[in-house]
């Protein structure tokens, strides 16, 4: 429950920021899912040929900064796998893990707010 204690420490404003961040991140992960399905078995790229990697990179950098180190960890694995030319199956698995960890963070944040 360290995310909740973080929210306490930095006050309500930070808790609000965390929620905003989680909303944004959830949307970003949806974008990753969309890019994967759009690529239809090929390596997902997106805008400028780099969108997929850029989203993974951003989430990796921001997650831990907001106190969600597990989000950063999974996003980091995803970025690395992508750069290493992993199969779409492997990328899809990692995106799914990311989706799960974001969902559970949202759940906990909501619990903390009650």
């Amino acid at each position, binding site marked *: 429950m360290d995310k909740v204690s973080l929210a306490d420490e*930095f006050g309500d404003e*930070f808790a609000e*920021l965390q929620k905003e961040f989680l909303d*944004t991140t959830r949307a970003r992960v949806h974008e990753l899912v969309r890019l994967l399905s759009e690529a239809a078995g090929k390596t997902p790229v997106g805008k*400028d040929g780099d969108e997929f990697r850029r989203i993974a990179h951003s989430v990796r*950098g*921001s*997650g831990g*900064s907001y106190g969600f180190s597990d989000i*950063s960890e999974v996003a980091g694995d995803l970025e690395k796998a992508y750069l290493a030319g992993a199969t779409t199956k492997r990328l899809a698995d990692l995106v799914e893990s990311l989706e799960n960890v974001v969902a559970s963070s949202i759940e906990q944040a909501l619990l903390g707010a009650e």
Partner: protein
Amino acid sequence: MAEKILLVDDDPTILRLLEHALGREGLSTATAETGAEALEAIASQPPDVVVLDLVLPDASGRDLLAQFQDICPHVPVVVLTASDTVDDIVECMRLGASDYLQKPFDQTRVVTSVRNALRQGELRASVESLSGKLRSREGFAAIIGSSPPIRHTVDFLSRASTSDVVVLLQGESGTGKEVAARAIHTESGRRDGPFIAVNCGAIPEGLIESELFGHERGSFTGATAARTGSFEQANGGTIFLDEVGELRMDLQVRLLRVLQERVVRPIGGSEARSIDVRVIAASNRNLQQEAARGTFREDLYYRLAVFPITLPPLRDRGSDVLLLADAFAIRCASEAGKDIAGFSPEARHVLEQYHWPGNVRELQNIVERAAILEDGPRISVSSLPESVVRGAGLEPRRAAGSPDSYGVGDTVAAAIESMTADDIVPMDEEERRIIRRALELTNWDAQEASRRLRIGRATIYRKIERYGLRTAK
């Protein structure tokens, strides 16, 4: 006013977080999501610190970092990077980043890093201002003295330095007219341009015209090559015309024309060359009186005397004499490799009482000579010229054994007694004689001679070279 931090990151969630962390610390923030926005923000209002993400959609953070160094080199940049390779970090520091933050970061670390960068920025600013002050030591700070007349003069010089107005420096010989002219130049907007000093009284009459205005090749007998005149050499800077009162009437006319038209025509040349030169003239004669008498052109006088400044004689500058004497003594002692800490109380009294007809230059010469002669830790009366001691109303001869004793025999004293002003020789001649005598008395052992003269070994070898004493052996 709160310090302003510019946050540059393409990820809005990171910007929000940084704004939050720094805002809580009372720091005001602005944000940019692209390199272009960042450059715009910096150009419109330079921040105190920049926090920069290295990966931006429109620019490489490294390029931006380099651009920031060009636009505002004093603003510290804290680099944000998700990269954890040492090479990237080293590269950023090499490019001038003051710190780096690795993503994910924690808020305390952000605040600490930005606070450190702010401090670094303040240090850079104070270094800047200190080096500005150091530069000014060459300017008005080079004019030593705290007496009201000199402070008043420096105030005028300082006003003159803010524009290109023609300045006429007047004052007795040795009052520091060239030092004042250089100070005006150094403090003016022309400080990066040349400063050309021409002593109109010291250049042979036949050469002065060519010296000032230049000549074309073959324009007169002996003109085997073209010569650029002082006015053209001073282009973009300042020309200092010392002893302008010594100029021949026909050259006064030419000078007047240069001042009016801002162009020079070299001798033998038909083409007029336009020049951008600030003119400072000086004379120890009263040019206004000379103009009234008809020995100096009145129209030129009025051209030159737009901003007349009179440098005060040393005798009117009170305790400045001692300030200057100490400054010269420190400089001479260090040049001579000697350990001299100022003057004996009696010597100070002499310096204060003497009337200094040759002004600062005379004081400087006397202190230089005394520093060479002095054997003790402080310059005593016995190292000062007898004329100065007498001029100060003191009896130069003292009982043998007293600290300020002359230590010279009666014959020498009598010889000095019978001397006239015509017997005064230039300083360097006197110095040559002293060094030569020391070398003869030590059987040309330069090391021993320098030890006994209490000057550095390097100094004596330099002087031997300069005075051509080696061949005298």
